[in-house]
Structures are given as structure tokens and as C-alpha cells.
């Protein structure tokens, strides 16, 4: 077989052209991304002034908050992107209770559903196809051993001044707190206080949501996740006085029940274009 002297350069040109086109396609751009963590109760919007039926017991809510951390987006090619947040360096204790200075760099979200907050900035992420996301419910490791009183007030780990997000009698964050009233006498009116506060490393849970989504250029991409508080509390019998109060260490059985429900309480609903203001 004989080739003209132009054949090889032509093949090379065509190859480079195709490769160049491919490269354009693969060169993803960073896009603005938010997380909408929508609170629901059995599929209905979770509202603070509403009564719900919880396994036959009327309940209402006045507190609903949850910490998410180490939020990771999982790309189609297996690449994982840990979302970073504003970096802070604060005093902390290490595992041996020695004083250390610790830097928190991953994005931490304190979702205040009792304030109606649902949408949170995740910053920039690469556009493209993703197979899902992963996050922790709670604060892990050294991040959970910082001195909350010394965290700048604009950070999610700062000591909150309305409702506690941090034990005031022990180190560590309250990963999840649900407060409200439950009907104690069967008249259909919630009247007995319940407090479900989950914390401590033992009850830290990782959630992976394997639903595909696409981050698109030119818009602010909102990853829409639903959190069903009915599912979270499903195993807790709020008609039982012994299950009304749980601050983790004082009611391990209830803490275990709630922790066991965390993974199934989240659902990745889809991806939308963000239209809302974002909270921290």
C-alpha cells in the first residue's frame, strides 16, 4: 500500500481536530451550586404551627435543625468532590484532651428548618454528570471538638443564640434536634413537650443518595434534597412518656432509634435552577 506524502499529516490533523473537539466537550466549567434541604412530614411541608399525625399521636413542632458536613458530590467517572467552606482556625481539644488549634475547612451546614431556611450555598462545582452525593449528618472528628464559644458568629459551627446547637453541659455539637409537643391524653391536642437531640460520634451517620443529576453551565444549580421528619421519628413512640425526652446520653434507646432512621429520611429529589436567597 502506498500513501501520498500528505496522508500522514492529514490523519494527524483529523486526529488533533477530533481530540480538540473532545477536549472542548470534556472541559467542564465551574458552576454555582446550592443545596435545598426541604423539610417535610410524610411528604407534606413541615411547618412549625401545624399539627401532624405521628403513628396515631398528634404532634407539633417548634424546633427542627440538622447539621450536614463533609458534603461530597460523586461524578459519573467516579471522581469525588468534597465541598469546601469558609476556613476557620479555632481552639480545640485533640483526642487526648490537649489544647490544639484546629482548622475547619469543609462546608458545614446547620439547616434551621424552624426558621424556614431551606437553601444553602455549596459554592462552585464542576459542571457535568453526577451519580449522586454523600454527606454526614453531624460533625465528625476534630471538627466536633472545637470550642464552639470561640467560633466566629457567621460560621455554622458558631454557638447559636436562639436554640442550642451545641451541648451546654458537654463538648460536641447537637447533630439533630427536633422539639415540639405530643398529645399525652388522647384528646388530639399536642400538650407534652418532646425533645429529640442527637449527638456524639457514636451516632454520626453518613448518608449516600444515589440519584443521577447534571450540573449545568449558565445557571445556579440547586440540588434538591428532601428530609422527612416523620421518617426520622418513625420508630419513636411519642405517646410513651419515656420516649419524649432524649438528649442522647440520657436516652440511648431513643437515640439509637432516630440514628437508625437517618439514612432513609433523605431523598434526592432532583436538580433545579435556584431562584431563592441562600442561607448560612
Amino acid at each position, binding site marked *: 500500500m502506498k500513501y501520498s506524502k500528505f496522508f500522514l499529516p492529514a490523519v494527524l490533523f483529523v486526529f488533533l481536530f477530533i481530540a480538540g473537539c473532545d477536549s472542548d466537550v470534556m472541559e467542564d466549567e465551574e458552576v454555582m451550586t446550592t443545596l435545598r434541604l426541604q423539610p417535610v412530614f410524610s411528604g407534606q411541608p413541615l411547618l412549625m404551627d401545624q399539627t401532624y399525625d405521628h403513628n396515631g399521636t398528634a404532634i407539633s413542632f417548634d424546633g427542627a435543625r440538622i447539621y450536614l458536613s463533609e458534603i461530597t458530590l460523586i461524578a459519573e467517572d467516579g471522581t469525588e468532590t468534597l465541598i469546601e467552606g469558609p476556613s476557620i482556625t*479555632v*481552639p*480545640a*481539644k485533640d483526642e487526648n*484532651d490537649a*489544647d490544639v488549634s484546629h482548622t475547619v475547612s469543609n462546608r458545614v451546614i446547620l439547616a434551621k428548618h424552624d426558621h424556614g431556611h431551606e437553601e444553602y450555598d455549596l459554592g462552585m462545582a464542576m459542571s457535568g454528570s453526577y451519580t449522586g452525593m454523600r454527606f454526614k449528618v453531624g460533625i465528625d472528628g476534630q471538627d466536633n*471538638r472545637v*470550642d*464552639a*464559644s*470561640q*467560633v*466566629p*458568629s457567621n460560621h455554622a459551627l*458558631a*454557638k*447559636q*443564640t*436562639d436554640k*442550642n446547637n451545641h*451541648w*451546654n*453541659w*458537654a*463538648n460536641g455539637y447537637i447533630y439533630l434536634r427536633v422539639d415540639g409537643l405530643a398529645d399525652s391524653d388522647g384528646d388530639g391536642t399536642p400538650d407534652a413537650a418532646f425533645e429529640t437531640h442527637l449527638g*456524639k460520634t*457514636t451516632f454520626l451517620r453518613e448518608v449516600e443518595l444515589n440519584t443521577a443529576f447534571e450540573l449545568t453551565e449558565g445557571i445556579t444549580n440547586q440540588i434538591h434534597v428532601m428530609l422527612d421528619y416523620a421518617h426520622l421519628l418513625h420508630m419513636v413512640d411519642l405517646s410513651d412518656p419515656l420516649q419524649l425526652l432524649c438528649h*442522647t*446520653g*440520657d436516652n*440511648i434507646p431513643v437515640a439509637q432509634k432516630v440514628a437508625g432512621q437517618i439514612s432513609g429520611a433523605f431523598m434526592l429529589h432532583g436538580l433545579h435552577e435556584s431562584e431563592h436567597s441562600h442561607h448560612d
Partner: protein
Amino acid sequence: MLVLVSGCELVADEGHQLALLDVPESFDPIPVPSHNPTTRAKVELGERLFSDVRLSENGSVSCASCHLPEHAFADPRPLSIGVHGRTGIRNSPTLVNIAYQNLLFWDGGAFTLESQALGPLENPVEMDMNLGALLDRISSDASYQAAFEDVFSQGVNVLTLTQALGAFQRTIRSGGAPIDRYLSGQEDALSASARRGLILFENKADCASCHSGFLFTDQTYQNNGLTFAAADSGRARITLNSDDFANFRVPTLRNVGISAPFMHDGRFSSLEEVINHYDRGGTNSRGQSELVRSLQLSDMEKADLKAFLLSLSDDFILSGLPDA
């Protein structure tokens, strides 16, 4: 001033001069976190906050209500009483030399003096104060507003409030007890009975196994064989480890002569009761430390031990910074 001044921690004065946070030579320097340097103005602000009843929900209780200076900043009542007469489940411990304490509270639940301050402020049976309301209350006082601006160049917030309280508490210190003078060479600082008590303390009674070092505590958590109350699981509440059930912080023995009652729940009103408890070998309760065993002390030995324990009390206790 009776405290032996020589081992010293340098602290910044508000005029960026240096003052001395004095401690005896036998003490380690007072640890001061780099993020919260001690300044005179900050300590004074913290002292004012410490004594201010407006820090409680109904304006009836201050930090000083349960940490009385004349009782070595401890509470003479077995269980401390908060707002509306609410009673807690523990005795308020002494704050003297608290800067050296690695973890705070009887169960070690708090990491730092700064974060510790939030515990009693928010506890419903102590000061029951909503933090947001507290910050509003303090901010509305022009003199506080000016003081916070002066010290921190910002208003009152969680960070500045806790730093001021922490800075003041870090200055509550003592180290001028007869035992300190004895250990520095003044033999007649201890009576003959107290000297015999010292030998018992370190040997037959073996108190020094836990009550060691210049603070007379090794800062561990032990189950000292008390009959326990189910309501208070001690260190286990923090660690969720059943091995820590009914373990409580080994307290400093400094100033036991003026800081009764004793134990985490203030159950013993006198040193005699404490000595008798250990002499009996505790109550053989669940998880009791092997270190607590029958001592079979004679009446004289008990009296000697008490004489020694009384030698751990200071002539007076310092708080705040020395005059410039």
C-alpha cells in the same frame, strides 16, 4: 500578699504593658490561651459579669451566687440553687486555680473556661438564660457596651462574653497555704500532727495516688465508692462509656478547710465524714475504684490526716490582677 511570687506568667496590660499573673514557684505558669490574652480591663470586665445577677433569667442569680469567694469560690450548700429556687444535682466546685484544669465540670464535659461559661448560663436549673436575650440585655447597658468596645473593639457577643468570663476566672488562684511554706523549707509551717498526716496521705491512706501534684489532683475521673444516684451517671454522661459510670473528677484538695461540703453532690459536710468514707473503703458500689479500700485508720491517724488536709487551705485567695 501571702502568695509566693516568683514563677510568673506574663500578661498584657490594656496599655500593652506587661503585668504579672503571679503564682508560687512550685506551680506551673498559669496557662493562658493565645486567643484570649489576659488584660487588666478584660479581667475587670469578667469580674463584673461574674457578679452580675442580670446574667440570669430573673435577675436573681450570678456566677458568684454559687461560687463564693469566702468559700474558695465554691458553694457551701450541698446542691446549688438556681433561678426560682430550682435545685441542681451537683455541688458547685471551687474555682481556685481553675486555669490549670484541663477539662471542666465534675464530669469533664467542658473543654475550656470560655466554653464552660455557657453551661450554667443556659442550664434551666442554674441561670436559665437564653443567650440571645442575654446579649440583648448586656448590650442595652451603656457602661457594658463601652467596656466591651474598650476591651475587644467590638460589642458583646458569645465570643467576647465568654472570653471576659474566662479571663477573670483564670486569675482566681492560690498557693500560699501552710503546706506550700512547709514544702519550701519552713518546717514549722505544719504542726506535728499535720506532718504525721502528710506521711499518712502519701503512704498508708494513699490519698496521693489521685490527689497528687501542686493542685493535689491528677485530673483523672474516678469512682470513689459512693452510693450512687441513677440521675447522675458522672463521666459516662459525656463519654457514653459504661466503664465511666459514676466516675467524677478528682477534685483539688486545696482549700478543703473552707470549701465544704464535699463530693460531687455535697453529701459530706465535714472532713471527718470524708475521712471515714475512705477509711471504710467506700461502699463497694458498682465500678468502685480499686484504689478505694479499707484503711483501718486509728482515731489519731484520722485526726492527723485532717490536720494535714487543713494545711492545704490558703490564708486568702487572689483574684484579679495585682495592682500595677
